[in-house]
């Protein structure tokens, strides 16, 4: 069973998109077309608070998710091993 990449601490995200670009590189792509991770600014966050939201395509499990977790500078992700 493939490992699962989870967004456990979205409040720590600084919007750098390192995760998005790492996932794209694993697909040998440079750009955002077909990105399996998308990072959005959360426009509903409280005034003055900058928050980001992440959306992960389930197909991310076919990639090396440990590398994606590791490249995040703020520890936003956790990797779950299936039982």
């Amino acid at each position, binding site marked *: 069973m493939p490992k699962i990449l989870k967004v456990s601490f979205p409040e720590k995200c600084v*919007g*750098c998109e390192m995760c998005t670009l790492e996932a794209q590189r694993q697909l040998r792509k440079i750009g955002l077309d077909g990105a399996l991770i998308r990072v959005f600014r959360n426009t509903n966050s409280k005034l003055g608070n900058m928050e980001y939201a992440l959306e992960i395509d389930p197909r991310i499990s076919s990639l090396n998710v440990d590398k994606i977790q590791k490249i995040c500078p703020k520890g936003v992700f956790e990797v779950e091993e299936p039982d």
Partner: protein
Amino acid sequence: METRPRKILSIDITKKESEVKSFEDLNSYIGGAGLGFKLMEMYYDKNPLIFAVGPLNGLFPFASKTALVINNDGVIEDIYLGGNLSLRIRYAGLDAIVVYGTSQEKTILDITNTGVSFKDSTEDPETLGLPGKRSVIKVDGSKILLGGYFTTPEHYLEKEFTDKNISGIVVTGTELINIKDFDKYEDLYKKILGRKDELSVLEGTYPSCSNCPMGCGKSKTGEMGGNVLLHSLVACQYADRIYTDVGVVFSCLNVLGYNYTHEDIESLPKLIEQTLRRIS
């Protein structure tokens, strides 16, 4: 000499017209500040607002800034804006965006790979373009902010938006960039990323520029002036120890397929100086 044409999107906001032009003779200016200054000379009479990216934007870490070149009452200013705009311009397949003229009514520019739509100010820029692939610059209270956070020093963006009657710019980029030797590129990417301790800025928890893991507090208001090679690439000034190393610059340019020579790089400051002298 490099022979890859530069793609420039020019937008006449008075006529609400736009066109993409390719220029082979702009290669010697590399990109970013160098390209922006040359475009300022070409469009000087139209008082343009110029956004220019460099060859490393969207491809290498810490190369995340967008060069803005403006005519501030006769003084040509180069400003470097943080956030995700440089990646979106690069992924839209463009090297620069030149905006000139004045709109009769407040207008939002909705820019994609395929062209420009002129929207009226009743639309919310956050609903334009594609989520996750767009960069949004819009009025936020009394300020003009990119991504709700990044801005320019001395309210330059506010002045430009007011003069041209622009209330928002949205750039969406969906092109993919092909690199011949992807493994070599990825290896170089990781090596440069591994040098983050050489940055002259501390890691923080502030909104970060795209493709930069630092989250520093310095990128909020951008940068002005500085090293022309760094700002033609367009790398962050806090990564100057990495990107003023000509060996690193050549490795990056070579893996991306550019054919610049040492003479091309060494002659850049003089070329820029001559360009600025002609328009000052």
